[in-house]
């Protein structure tokens, strides 16, 4: 039965869970809402796991390497797993209201991204490519969490400044905890992204030596590098500032994290739907997998 799972199945589950989170925010406390949110999220995650497994079976590649579509699906899968984990630790925390929009954006974006198998992943570099993609996705998850935590900070800050109460079923952590979490998420995701990026450059150099031609003027790479540089400047500024204005940091994180997520997702969509018509390492659509495997085999023999 799980072999027939489509993106729509888990997207619908997450949409319902998000709707219930909204109801929890707008209405009074209801003892059924939280278990329902958990149930729908868990059902969605099970369906998504099955989908990722099916995709990996189909392409004979790990999910992160098979295609940009799968990369976005894994990204959202990680965010939902984190949501469920947090929900088990702190059932009062209303993180879903902030996290589900991001999950839904990723899942919906995956619709617009080609599901064509990545042709450039040769068996010889597969483990490095996997590390590159894993570090980038983990870094991306970290930045996603920074974005969510900063949004929560700004909402909590606004409530405290306006001297208001949240509705009964809605709880956010203290400002101190949110800024601490934001700092940690930044400190973890920045090195992950940096190392992931470094491995990517190394892989590029390696691939250029072989039969494949890859350009470092690839717009995807250039945009990623610019965004990474902007993010690193922000991170250094945030970590170096003594007694910073935490509201400004949350705003800065929202902008930087938002820009990074928007760019990563946006560039995948633009290249894959061929609005930007260039041959990119991250959106290779011409070479079928078998062809690449043959090329690699030939190279190994020679």
């Amino acid at each position: 039965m799980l072999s027939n799972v489509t993106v729509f199945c888990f997207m619908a589950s997450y949409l319902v869970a998000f709707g219930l989170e909204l109801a929890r925010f707008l209405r009074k406390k209801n003892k059924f809402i939280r278990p329902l949110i958990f149930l729908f999220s868990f059902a969605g995650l099970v369906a998504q796991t099955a989908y990722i497994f099916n995709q990996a079976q189909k392409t004979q590649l790990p999910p992160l390497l098979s295609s940009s579509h799968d990369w976005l699906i894994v990204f959202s899968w990680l965010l939902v797993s984190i949501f469920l984990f947090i929900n088990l630790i702190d059932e009062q925390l209303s993180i879903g209201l902030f996290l589900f929009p991001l999950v839904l954006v990723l899942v919906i974006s995956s619709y617009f991204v080609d599901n064509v198998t990545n042709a450039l992943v040769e068996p010889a570099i597969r483990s490095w490519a996997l590390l590159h993609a894993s570090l980038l996705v983990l870094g991306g998850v970290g930045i996603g969490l920074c974005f969510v935590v900063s949004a929560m900070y700004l909402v909590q800050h606004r409530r405290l400044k306006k001297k208001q109460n949240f509705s009964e079923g809605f709880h956010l952590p203290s400002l101190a905890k949110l800024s601490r979490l934001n700092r940690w998420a930044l400190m973890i995701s920045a090195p992950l992204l940096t190392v992931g990026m470094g491995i990517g450059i190394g892989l590029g150099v390696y691939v250029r030596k072989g039969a494949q031609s890859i350009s470092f003027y690839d717009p995807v790479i250039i945009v990623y590098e610019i965004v990474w540089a902007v993010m690193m400047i922000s991170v250094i500024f945030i970590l170096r500032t003594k007694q910073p204005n935490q509201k400004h940091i949350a705003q800065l994180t929202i902008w930087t994290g938002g820009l990074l997520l928007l760019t990563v997702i946006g560039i995948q969509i633009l290249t894959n739907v061929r609005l930007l018509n260039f041959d990119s390492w991250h959106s290779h659509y011409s070479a079928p997998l078998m062809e690449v495997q043959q090329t690699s085999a030939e190279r190994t023999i020679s």
Partner: protein
Amino acid sequence: MNLQVVYCNHQTAGLDVREKLAFSSKEQLDSAYSVLKKSYPDTEMVVISTCNRVELYTATQESESGPSHQDLAKFFSEFHQVPVSDFFEDFLERTGPDAVRHLFQVASSLDSMVLGEPQIVNQVKEAYQRATDNALCGPLTHALFQQAIRVSARVRTETQLSEGRVSIASVAVGTFGKGIFERFDNKTVLIIGAGEMAEETLIYLKDEGVDQIVVVNRSLENAQKLATKIGGEARPYQDLEDCMAKADVIVSTTGSNQPIVDVPCFERVLEKSGNKTFFILDLGAPRDFDSAVGEINDNIFLYDIDDLEATCEKNRHARQKEVEKALEIIDEETDRFMHGIYHRATGPIIKQLREQWHEVREQEVEKLFGKLSHLDEKDQELIERSIEQIVNKLLHPPLEVLRQEAREGTPHGLLKALKQLFHIRD
């Protein structure tokens, strides 16, 4: 007898109005009492002035002699130099049983911002004691306030109103403080003022794990007393700015007439402290902090009493059943008190009337038996009982009317008429 209360509280008026009408020091209250005593010498009076309410209870034996609602509004206006138009809409009046019920609700903390808070009964006791010291209490106010204290104890014993968050400090820290700080055990708390509210707040914060406590007060002696009791450090008032710079949580509970911390003062504090987060709880009425202090930067979170109103209302809804139970007790006690008061007013008249008529009956029976000496003891007894029944039947309608009228309040007119008709003297 006439009972009346004029008041404005957190439900009827904002803090900006209440702080104009409050009596913030004992000296100010004594001065108000002396003005009132001069203007209304025959009136018993008690003033309750806390951060949430300003109430003036008056009681007179004669309904005409006491001050009216307008008279008292005029007094507040002249005493505090505030135009009547600024507060008259929020300045309510209750009389008779409504006034009694109101006091019982106040003393039982049903009218408090934080339902079930224990502090109000002490404030009522203090207010009553202060009025007694100023020789403004009489038989009516003594009875009223002593009964109010008993009712408060009964409500506390027979309901669960006092369970859960029952102090302003607990509501403020629970609603806002815990949204700012993750924990309090590593925070420095500064208490400005050394009164009962300061002590109560400190006790709550100690329970939250606060260890570093600094008390600043105009009277260093009082600050030292509180600091010793709670386990903190007392500092002279001159060090206020330094102490604020070092504090994370500032709780102000002084009785100052004017804000003690304004924007320039707090900007000097910020120069010393840097860009740190401040959680400031201003529990003073009038307010101790200029409200503009909260707008200086994003890291200053300033709350006054009125900012806690919404949370307290939620608290109240959650304990609606207990509120209903308490209201039943208060209604029952109000009826009992009013019955006692009216009985006290009508009792002597009824007694005198009965005694007068029975005296007449005895005299006439004696005369009759003198003329009818042939009657045996059994006949005499029959006649005597018969005449007694006639007297009782004749007395019944007027006394019944008097009792009925007394249920609605002291029937001054009827009592006066009875006195005139039957020549009854006080």
